[in-house]
């Protein structure tokens, strides 16, 4: 079945510093990867859609300057949270889209900011 691995599972960073999270699809080709954030209140926000060989589409309120994404091949994507502050806390989810347009999520990277 489709598996999506994310690492690290948890990370703590000081306010104003940056952290990078990674996502790997196993068992299928993730042509597109959607990055989401789940807030501490459990609501989901779409950050961006990354498609191999295409420009990354960022949603309103999210920018490349703040959340740069790399998607070099069909199995790997990474996203960095630059200058993290308290409002960036949450569970960052990588969702890999299969050929049947089904979105499979990884376990997430939980970001805490001190």
């Amino acid at each position, binding site marked *: 079945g489709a598996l999506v691995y994310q690492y690290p599972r948890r990370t703590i960073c000081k306010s104003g510093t940056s952290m990078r999270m990674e996502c790997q699809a196993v068992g299928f080709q993730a042509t597109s990867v*959607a990055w989401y954030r789940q807030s501490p209140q*459990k609501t989901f926000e*779409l950050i961006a859609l990354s498609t191999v060989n295409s420009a990354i589409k960022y949603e309103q309120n999210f920018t490349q300057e703040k959340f740069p994404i790399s998607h070099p091949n069909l199995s790997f994507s990474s996203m960095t949270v630059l200058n993290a502050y308290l409002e960036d806390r949450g569970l960052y989810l990588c969702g890999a889209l299969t050929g049947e347009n089904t979105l499979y*999520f990884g*376990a*997430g990277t939980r970001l805490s900011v001190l």
Partner: protein
Amino acid sequence: QQQVRQSSQSLTVWEGETAILNCSYENSAFDYFPWYQQFPGEGPALLIAIRSVSDKKEDGRFTIFFNKREKNLSLHIKDSQPGDSATYFCAASAGTNAYKVIFGKGTHLHVLP
């Protein structure tokens, strides 16, 4: 306005009962409806999904009933087990924007032994 609404924030059933989680949506363009199960500290795992051309989808103890005319759907969990205790998110997406999944706020299911 909430595009995908889950009628209950929380639901408690006894072990062995059928848990019914309800969901409704606004956008007629939605044609794919996944349900995700999330345990504390984990990401949401795809549990079962239905496309709008069907009115029922069954997978083991989990069944989705879908009513396109009424724009609602429900997830039935037969023979509920304590291990089913989790938060269940009803979600929806439309056509080629399958990556833009709109989530409900979730229903926290407690299955009591």
